[in-house]
Structure formats: C-alpha cells, structure tokens
C-alpha cells in the first residue's frame, strides 16, 4: 500500500499481523515493526536503529510507548470509541493508536483495512460493502444483534469489549484479515457457513446415500456445518469415481448407500439357468456381485455399484433356486431376472 503526495510518500509493507515496515517511495526503510503473538511490541527506526517499545491494552490499543531505557515517549488515554483524551508524554511521533490501527495524521481517521473509521464519531466513514453479485443489503449483519444492521456502526456499539480486525470481517462468527475480506466481497472466499449452506443445497437432492445412519434429508436437519462439508466431499468423491468405489466420509461422519427398491416392470426379462449344484449356482451369482456387496435386506444383496442383485430368500432356496437380477442402479428397475436352479439334493 502506498500513501503519496507527488513524489513523496510512504509505502506500507503488510504482514500477517500488521505493517512490517514503512519505506519511502523508493524503498528506503524508515521504520520496522516487531510483533509477538500477533501484537505490535516494538518499532525500530532506520537507519538510526532506535528502538521504541509498545505497551497495549486488552483491545490492542497502544497506550504507552517507551524508549529502550524506559523513558515515556507516549502515554495515551482513549475514549471508548478511540478518540484521544490526552497524551501524557508526547515525545515521539507514533501513528498506530486505537486497537493498533494506523491513525492518519491529516484526516484523523483510523485505517481498518477495508474502511476508514472516525473515532470522533464512533462510526465508519463508509458503509460495509460486499460483492456486487451479493444482493444482501446487510451482508455482514448478524440478525440476532440488531445493532449489526447499521452498516456504519463499530463493533455493534460495544467498543470497550470488542475489536474490529479489519473493518468488517466478523462474518458468520469468523474473524478474517482484510485480504480475505476483499476476496470475500467478490465471491472468492467463503465462510464455513456459506460453504455449508451451498453444500446443504447440493446434498438436498441426494436420495440414495445415508449419513450417520440417517437419510440425507434428516441428516441435513441436524448436521453441523463441518459434518455437512465432510459428507459433501465424500459424496462428490463417490459420484465422480470412474470405477466402483466405496463411500467414505471419515472424521466422525459415517456414510452409506441407500439403494433404490428393486422394481420389476413389463420390460423385465425372465430366464433361467441350471447348475450342477447349489454351490455352483451361488458361485455364479457372486461373480457379478463382487466382493464388496451390501446386504440390503435379509437374503438380498446388492453389488456396490447397484447394478446387480442376488436374492436368496428361504422360500427360494427351499425350492432349489436363487435369483440374480440386473438392475438400473438409478431407478431400481429390474432389467433381467435370472433364476439359477440346481437339482434337488445336490447340496452346496
């Protein structure tokens, strides 16, 4: 970032916790900032190497600055919304003030990343903004707190307890940096809730998969955002797999396939084959079923891809046959029903 007036000005080199250094427009370093635990703790002036130590309150507002020898260089009392009551020892120029944000010497406004804030008003100077594709007029509002509906308000009018890290990014209970916020405004980044809302919409139409022992609809009613995202990832992996695959959710979420009910129609072709023994007939059926078949009900198994069904009910076996059925895996329609027979008394 750059603040310039013609050929003179300052360049700000941001880091994850704030500005790391300030240079001239040609890159000569004037100040370097030291952070610990996300808090600004010191400034080193260049080229002199003079060190200033920062002491902050619970909001991150720099209340006191001292020299390396402990001499008071700045000792500020703040009003609740960030205005300066008094500086008890104004001995050094220091422009990072309320909640550690830079206070512009010309306008007196604090730069919060996304917007400027006026501590004299206790309000941001511009309304909270969002992506043009997002029609929500109060994009960052938390409807449980009416104060958040004011697009200019600061920390829901609770400035002695809350801080605003970047001008608007208390989104869905998540705190983000201004880069994330800018990306969020144009739809590049999403909160977990936003991702989960989209996942819920995607999964709502999924009928043949159950999660945590429930049908998808019931699961979505009670699942956490994280569970919904895990389930979505598993379903996408499963549905996009080229080969037959398992549905695996993991991370405390269990998924399974709910097969459609088998549905004989007038298009179902019935035929039979005769085998030497029951064992031979069953072995034949298993070649189509695969090793990871699912027992969909007692005496009825479905291949993992849902294309084949093996039916061996007590009534079938007692009359020397089992069934191998080819199904439409989406609709459950029985395409063909093969009766696998064996002579009486041949055993398994």
């Amino acid at each position: 970032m750059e603040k310039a007036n013609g050929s003179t000005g300052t360049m700000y080199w941001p880091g994850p916790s704030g500005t790391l250094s300030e240079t001239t427009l040609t890159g000569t370093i004037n100040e370097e900032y030291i952070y610990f635990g996300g808090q600004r703790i010191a400034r080193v002036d260049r080229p002199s190497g003079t060190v200033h130590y920062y002491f902050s309150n619970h909001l991150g507002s720099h209340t006191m600055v001292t020299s390396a020898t402990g001499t008071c260089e700045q000792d500020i009392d703040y009003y609740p919304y960030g205005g300066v009551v008094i500086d008890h020892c104004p001995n050094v120029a220091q422009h990072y003030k309320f909640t550690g944000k830079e206070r512009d010497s010309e306008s007196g406004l604090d730069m919060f990343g996304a917007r400027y804030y006026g501590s004299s008003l206790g309000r941001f100077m511009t309304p909270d903004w969002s992506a043009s594709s997002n029609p929500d007029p109060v994009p960052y509002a938390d409807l449980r707190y009416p104060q958040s509906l004011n697009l200019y308000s600061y920390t829901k009018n609770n400035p002695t307890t809350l801080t605003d890290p970047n001008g608007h990014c208390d989104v869905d209970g998540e705190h983000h940096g201004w880069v994330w916020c800018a990306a969020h405004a144009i739809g590049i980044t999403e909160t977990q809730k936003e991702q989960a809302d989209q996942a819920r919409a995607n999964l709502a139409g999924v009928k043949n998969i159950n999660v945590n022992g429930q049908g998808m609809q019931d699961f979505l009613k009670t699942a956490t955002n994280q569970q919904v995202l895990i389930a979505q990832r598993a379903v996408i992996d499963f549905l996009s797999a080229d080969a037959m695959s398992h549905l695996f959710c993991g991370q405390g979420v269990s998924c399974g396939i709910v097969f459609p009910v088998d549905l004989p129609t007038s298009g179902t072709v019935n035929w039979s084959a005769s085998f030497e023994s029951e064992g031979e007939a069953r072995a034949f059926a298993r070649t189509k079923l695969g090793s990871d078949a699912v027992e969909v009900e007692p005496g009825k198994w479905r291949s993992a891809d849902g294309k084949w069904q093996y039916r061996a009910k007590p009534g079938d076996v007692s009359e020397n046959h089992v069934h191998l059925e080819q199904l439409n895996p989406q609709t459950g329609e029985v395409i063909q029903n093969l009766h696998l027979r064996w002579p009486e008394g041949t055993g398994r």
Partner: protein
Amino acid sequence: MNKHLRLPLDIDLVRHPGQTVLRISLHREVLCEWCAGLSLLKEGLIEVLTVTEQQKRGAKVQFLTEPKTGGTVRVRFKSDLSEVTLTRNNLEYLQHFFLKYYRDSVAEVDHLDLQAIDAETGNKEIYVTFRVPESTAPVTPEEARRRLEG
C-alpha cells in the same frame, strides 16, 4: 364393479423362517380367464378381481390396484381371504408375463415373485409367488455366462 373367477388353481400360504409366501399355482386351462381378469383390472374396468380355488378349501385372493408407479405390493391377510393390492408397474409386470405365456404356450420361467409388505404389521418379508406348469428350459451355465457377458 368386481369380477369373481372360480378357477382350478392352488392357493397356499407357506411360512418359511423369516418369510411368508402367498403362493398361487395356476393351471394352464385358467390362463385365458386369468389374463382377461388382469387386463380388466389394469384398464380400470373392474375394481377388484377375486380368484377362488375351485377345489380344496376354496381359498380366495382379491386383487386390487392403485394408480401409483413404484412402491411395494401390499397384502392384507384376512380369515377367509388374502387381499393383494398391486401397484401399476407390478400389475403391468404380471400382465406382460401371463400374456406372453398365453401367446407362447410356455412361460419364460416357472414362477414369478412379487415382494410385498403386510399392510397390517409392516412386515416386508412377504412374497406373492405365481407358479406356472410350463416354462422354457433353463440354459446351461456356459450359455448364462455368455448372455450376461454379451
């Protein structure tokens, strides 16, 4: 309107461990009337098709239909008869099978199963099975394999 057919067929309720089968064994000579009855039911020209055993105990099955496609056949066991409510696709499946049998004088297979649910108890291990006396001879395992591979 109802249609009542008194036919030479066998109606048995067979109980296996965990499964109940309502078995209806048709004789060849009933085929024409049976197919006509199914067609009347499917076309909505009758509401109930009642079939009574001519011989033995005179057991009775009433066939009804409902317009929905999909879903499961519902069976209600009463003291003197069994009531079978067929969904549209199941009725079409039955009709197709028996009309083909009528056309060819031989059925594709020797029986046809319809899975059902007990309308009173919700038990899903109920089957309605239709047995026929003449069916196409089974193919060999090699032929079965060839057909499935093809």
